[in-house]
């Protein structure tokens, strides 16, 4: 039953951005909190990430971006997931994202943007809370 299993998170990086320290720290923190973390590897296209998210049946898709490409690639990924009927997955992003770009990403379907310097405990707490709210919404087995 989906509600019983640990939260499954796909972490991904899009395009040419190969900075991995942030995503590594987040991956370790999520695993430490008992979540299952899958990493797509570097230099992915939005198409590849969307199909990995569906194949791996993850609950959450998290994108790390430290390159200015986020205003194009992130909305594209959200659209691809919607088009493939995967709109139930929680979409979040983090990294070097200027404040002024946050509304655009939220509108595109990202539930939360974790800007630079976000405490990993805040990310864990947010995902745990979301997971709980999902369970509450599901009918009892």
């Amino acid at each position, binding site marked *: 039953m989906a509600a019983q299993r640990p939260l499954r998170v796909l972490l991904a990086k899009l*395009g*040419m951005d190969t900075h991995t*320290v942030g*995503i*590594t*720290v987040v*991956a370790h923190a999520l695993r430490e909190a008992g979540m299952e973390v899958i990493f797509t*590897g570097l230099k992915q296209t939005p198409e590849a990430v969307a199909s990995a998210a569906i194949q791996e049946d993850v609950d959450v898709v998290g994108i790390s971006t430290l*390159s200015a490409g986020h205003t194009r690639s992130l909305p594209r990924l959200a659209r691809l997931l919607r088009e493939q009927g995967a709109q139930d997955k929680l979409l979040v992003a983090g990294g070097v994202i200027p*404040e002024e770009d946050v509304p655009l990403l939220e509108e595109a379907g990202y539930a939360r943007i974790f800007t630079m310097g976000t405490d990993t405990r805040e990310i864990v707490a947010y995902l745990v809370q979301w997971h709980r709210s999902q369970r509450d919404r599901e009918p009892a087995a």
Partner: protein
Amino acid sequence: MSRPGNRIEPEASEAQEEAQRWERETRAPFVASHPERREAFVTQALKWPIQPLYTPADLDASGFDYARDLGYPGEYPYTRGTQPNGHRSSLWTMSQVTGFGKGEDWARRARYMLEQGLQGLILEHDLPTTNGYDSDNPLVEGEVGRAGLAVDSLEDLERAFDLPFERLKYLMSVCNAPQPVNLAMIIAALEKKGVDPRRFVVHIVNGILIEYTCVGRYIFPPVHGLRIATDCIEYIIRNHPNWAPISIISAQLQPAKANPVQELAFSMAIAMAYIDATLARGLPIDTIAPYFHFVVNVDMDFFEGICKLRAYRKVWARLMQERYGAKLPAALKIRMMTSPTTIALTLQQPLNNIGRLAIMATACALGGAGEAMTTPLHDEAHSLPAEEAIRVGAALQHIVAHETGVADTIDPLAGSYYVESLTKQIETAAMAEIDKIQAMGGALKAIETGYFQRALGREQYERNRDIEEGRRKWVGVNHLVVPGEKRQIEIFRADGRVEEEQVARLRELRARRDPEAVAQALEAVREAARTGANLVSPCLAAVKVYATHGELCDAMREVFGVHTPDSQLTGV
């Protein structure tokens, strides 16, 4: 003065007894009424305990021997420096990183930096180029010219090299995965500009093994990455003997949170992988070793930084002599550039970074700056460097060099009980780690199995946790925070026109060049990739007929395949 044999004597030395007496009679009673401000004092990255006091007893206990451990400047084991006269005859070369936009933009910025008194430049390519794609590849949309110079063809470098070459001592280029292509472009562009390659030093970083370890800008599987790097080393040694074919950028391991022991051990193991591969090309160690060059970062822990630099020189000398039987002094002397690290800098209260940079640059100078020092800029964490920041950054090195006196005597901290104890501890731990890596099959195996990547991943997580949980104080981040400080992040958005123009130029070039010559040249590159012949010569022939960077990388992709590591192999 202790002799090597002394340390095994069971009785405590006089020095030890005195130190114990002081502890008992003077310090302990004081601390009883004035508790220490921290539960434990440890070094910043290694987290090794720091004693309240270091005395001759600590040197005795570690078996320290002046002649064996330090020697004299310019003599084995070079702990006190590779130069016989330190920085008294000449200072280190002062440089800064630059690189963005189209060729002419880069040339404009580079000329400005030379006018500020800098003598060395570092050419950073944009991510499409570094990852082996042309500017019109759909994968790289939005990245062209953003993080560095966009190079699609020889014409782009011809534009970038519109420089007063007589003022420039060296040009360092960072473009690791497609290195034979990059090297070929540089050689061809200098030829076109009529620059005598013997009067000018080109450093190619050629650091693909660190890309697999932590930076991520790889293309081909590691074994092929090592082979093409070796092609470039061999080509330069045989054809441009005054150039520098390889830099081990420890300064990339360090921002990936390698602690000083990992940084030293991983970079030496990586150097040994290149050395072994180059020896296999029939070049002797005394010829190869002098070409190796290291770029080493210093972080905010003053003494870890200083001691690490001293240990680097000694460990290199020992490895070359003990493991490879090198004999020439040039082979035993490490060539090094030092740099304050960017990861100590904060987005918050950016002016504080000037203070941090001054402290780290001073540590570099005290540890022995090497042939060159490069300083990042105080505003780097939040924006593309402003010209004022470039000026402050250049001035900073001059302040350290001319106003503090740290460069006026050689290795001024030698003999410090703490510095010598920590230098020796770092050396010993690094040698043990190098042995461990060699036992698992060397650096290539350590990369192929993800050993390096996972070790760094753990350090990254732990360092972050120490900061989040307040064990490590960082001004502006978790200490002396300015409430409600606006954190302006200025990201350099690619000027859409740069990409458009670059793509238009590329298409125009493809239309006007000789397609048959290009096709033939590309086939020669594929052939060399298959047979194992050195790739630089066919790449040089190909760039001269204007085969593009991406086309040349594709030719090699067809033969080598591409590297697609999973979570275990990336350490994520």
